[in-house]
């Protein structure tokens, strides 16, 4: 990973984290100060999606080139995306407890998120069940691509095609965040950099995890 990207990640986080806690937010009924979770919860899903997309791209490249580096990168990216997904669920549950008065509801987006996490946990089980490295790389790349395409169908297309009521903003007749008349532009100035910052941090973490796994394997091989 290029150094200027790391610097960009640090700078955005230095801007985002204090502003997320201290910056001015628009006051909404029910939401009140919990609207600050926008910077944590929503950004996690965006970043997770980008990371998973990158993981799938590495999977496709692996199938075309058989370069084991691509498989390891794909694994590291999926791991970080999974962590982001779990954080996304946790922050979402806390938010839901304060605004909808429950940790979990039958909401298409919640179900989609849960299914995605399950599918990628299954991906991890699949990986750990195969000992031969080349076979593992091939099979998990195939499953990864398959799961990603179906996840896109699940998250993007199905909730729009069926008239299920969602409690999420912008769905089921609820106003989207963009429709709040007094949504301060200050919030956009934190929200968009937060997406960028978390995504860059994700790539950085994946990069570190990839390098650690590679070093561990190489040192084990020489002993």
């Amino acid at each position, binding site marked *: 990973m290029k150094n200027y990207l790391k610097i960009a990640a640090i700078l955005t986080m230095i801007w985002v984290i204090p502003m997320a806690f201290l910056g001015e937010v628009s006051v909404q009924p029910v939401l009140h100060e919990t609207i600050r979770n926008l910077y944590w919860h929503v950004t996690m899903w965006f970043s997770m999606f980008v990371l998973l997309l990158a993981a799938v791209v590495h999977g496709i490249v692996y*199938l075309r080139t058989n370069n084991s580096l691509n498989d390891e990168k794909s694994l590291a990216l999926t791991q970080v995306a999974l962590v982001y997904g779990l954080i996304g669920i946790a922050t979402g549950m806390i938010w839901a407890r304060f605004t909808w008065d429950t940790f979990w509801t039958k909401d298409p987006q919640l*179900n989609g998120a849960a*299914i995605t996490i*399950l*599918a990628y946990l*299954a991906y991890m*089980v*699949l990986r750990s*069940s*195969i000992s031969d490295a080349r*076979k593992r790389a*091939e*099979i998990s*790349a*195939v*499953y990864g*691509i*398959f*799961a990603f*395409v*179906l996840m896109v*169908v*699940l998250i993007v297309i*199905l909730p729009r*095609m*069926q008239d299920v009521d969602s409690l999420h903003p912008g769905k089921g007749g609820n106003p989207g965040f963009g429709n709040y008349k007094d949504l301060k532009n200050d919030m956009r100035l934190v929200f968009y950099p937060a997406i960028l910052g978390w995504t860059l941090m994700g790539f950085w973490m994946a990069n570190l995890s990839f390098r650690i796994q590679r070093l561990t394997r190489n040192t084990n091989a020489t002993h």
Partner: protein
Amino acid sequence: MNNLRLIWTWIQHEWRMELRQKAGIQGALLYVVVTLVVAYQAIGAVQDIETWVGLLWIILLFSVVNSSSRAFSAEGTGKKILLYFWLKPGQLILARMGYQMMFNGLTGIMGFSMFGILMGIPGNGVGMLVLLVAAGSAAAAALGTFMAAIASVAGNGAGLSAVLGLPLMVPTLMAASKGSIFCLQGGISQAQMYLAMLLLLTTLVVSLGYILFPYLWRD
């Protein structure tokens, strides 16, 4: 054309093998009946439409997972090598998926009839419901077949293919159960939309399988 005929020949061959062994088809049917009776013992006749549909699809889904997970487990190394030289990987997966889709579509309809006899049908539109059952079972079967292929190449049994497949079957389950609810409530046009959605999902799964299977099958 030659391609299609080869696949069709292979589907017929699978069917003949199935009839010869008998255990597979008997097992699949018995699985549906046993689950049905167990559910009936546990819950009894259900009148509420949403619960009825939910129960129907859980039973159908598990029987599809159960029977499609056998799709790649039957052959030993010798037959694998034979298959490898006989069919292109794309042809093999299309034949297997096609066969499983037909098989599970039929067992799904049979299971649905038994379900209807035991539980009663709380609404109208039985014809549409049968179509939805066949399409939903077929969609899940195509996916289950691919997961069985993955699990078999990974050297793992039916347990893994259920873990891999069930989360990915949720879009199918959602479309199928929503469609069935609309159907029972008399909303045939909405049900038709969900039927079309199931067919689209099946097309997606089959084409993904056709594209990706050669990478699984190369060694």
